[in-house]
């Protein structure tokens, strides 16, 4: 067990650097979509929620697990749709020709 925690710590350190460095110098313009996009990514919590509900035994555990799954699923789909909508607007950055 202890070994797994150390490994997880290695992973966490590296992930922190990756997250920090990947953002780098991001233009102000992208702050909101990036916030929304990273909001979507922590939707991976849904995976944990599925596991939690999947191993839940008592009705109380099942109820809380169900809440977790519902919330996690909202995080995922909502986060995706919002980010997608925001970024769809930026797509016009490509057509510099003029208004449609």
């Amino acid at each position, binding site marked *: 067990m202890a070994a797994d925690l150390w490994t997880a710590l290695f992973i966490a350190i590296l992930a922190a650097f990756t997250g920090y460095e990947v953002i780098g110098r991001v233009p102000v313009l992208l702050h909101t979509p990036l916030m929304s996009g990273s909001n979507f990514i922590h939707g991976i919590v849904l995976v944990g929620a599925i596991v939690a509900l999947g191993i839940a035994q008592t009705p109380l555990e099942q109820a809380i697990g169900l809440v977790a799954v519902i919330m996690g699923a*909202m*995080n995922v789909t909502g986060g995706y749709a919002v980010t997608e909508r925001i970024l769809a607007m930026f797509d016009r950055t490509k057509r510099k020709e003029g208004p449609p």
Partner: protein
Amino acid sequence: MTAWVGTVIDAVYVVAVLAFILGLKAMSSPETARRGIVYAGAAMLAAVVATFFSPGLSNFLLIAVGVIVGGGIGYYWARVVQMTAMPQMVAVFNGMGGGAAAAIAGVVLLSSLNNPADAGLSVAGAVIGSISIAGSVIAFLKLQGWMRQKPIVLPARQPVNLAILVVGVAFGVYSVVRVETIFLLPFFLLLLLYGILLTLPIGGADMPVVISMFNALTGIAVALDGFALVNGPLGDAGYAMVIAGVLVGAAGSLLTVLMARAMNRSISNVVFGAFGATEETGVTVQGTMKPIEVEDAAVLMAYANQVVIAPGYGMAVAQAQGKVRELSDLLEAKGVSVKFAIHPVAGRMPGHMNVLLAEAGISYDKLYDRDEINPEFANTDVVLVIGANDVVNPAARRAGSPLQGMPILDVDQAKNVLVIKRGQGKGFAGIENDLFYKDNCRMLYGDAQQVVAKLVQALKRSG
């Protein structure tokens, strides 16, 4: 279940993590941003589907119901809201993530309170997740206008909040030490309360920074839950959560700092400052605010060589972007060169103006950022300020002003400045604007959408 199923699931998680990183990277550059969310989305789908096949799960019906109900609500809600409501949507979905993290921690605590390492990690995850959901919901309510936007400042809030936090965490620790699930109830309740009280005193306009902070916190909560899961039989899901969670935690923290910096604020200022509750005193502005008729304003613009439009928060509230597009097209048809001056923190979220103007179909090459447009104002005939205030306030150049040092749009250097606003209302910073009293400045009072519509009408009549 055969062994290769486990291997495939593990492989899916590894690929998903890779795609998250690539997606995040892609999202931080305008050309590739959209590709980024698609990568991340595909990875998420694969990870969720793979998890269904994990060995040893039960309650499949409940899981399916939860995914469909939650997913359906989230997707529908996100598709139907107004574009201007995006910040509060981010808040709400982030809150859901925090809530899920807290709930997972709850399940782990209920089922394996006797494992001190896992229980400890879960308590930490529950603390952060609970604060995140409570705070995000308050942020949502404020931004949505369902709650007072102005800072709500309770007496002695700092010590009270601290006490609530400490007592709440103590309940959590105690429940782990005594292996007693009953103490988990006050634990969760107190932390939710703390999240609410923490967010109440923050003004609606500081919300983007706070939402970003809660976003990073949710990431950390997810990672803590992941840590607690790695020891279990389904450890690799835990690793995926640790990586994605920490990734968001780090990226989100950096983003929060960057956002606060773009607004010339510090994080502690935002969280503990109850900024916006005070007002500057002692400085009185000379001169009067001089109104102008819509017809005269239209003529002024129609005969200009160059018109620069400086939109702000008021344009967003009034949803005037469509009308602004019409105005811009009309002026261009008359041979006037039209440019938009985009201040980085105009509006209420970073990139707000770009998003709205893009939504209205105004082409990106007409948008100029502060550094590009500032040297041009001296040669500009007419600047039309639409519902902007702080970002065009020359007081920023005056020592002692609360805005001092904030980079502004130098609209006061243009030959004529027209300002659309409803009345004497102040901007986000709550201070007087010297600009409105200058000789070259004229006011067009009224709601931004209506005034711009009248300008459009006047231009059509005249041409």
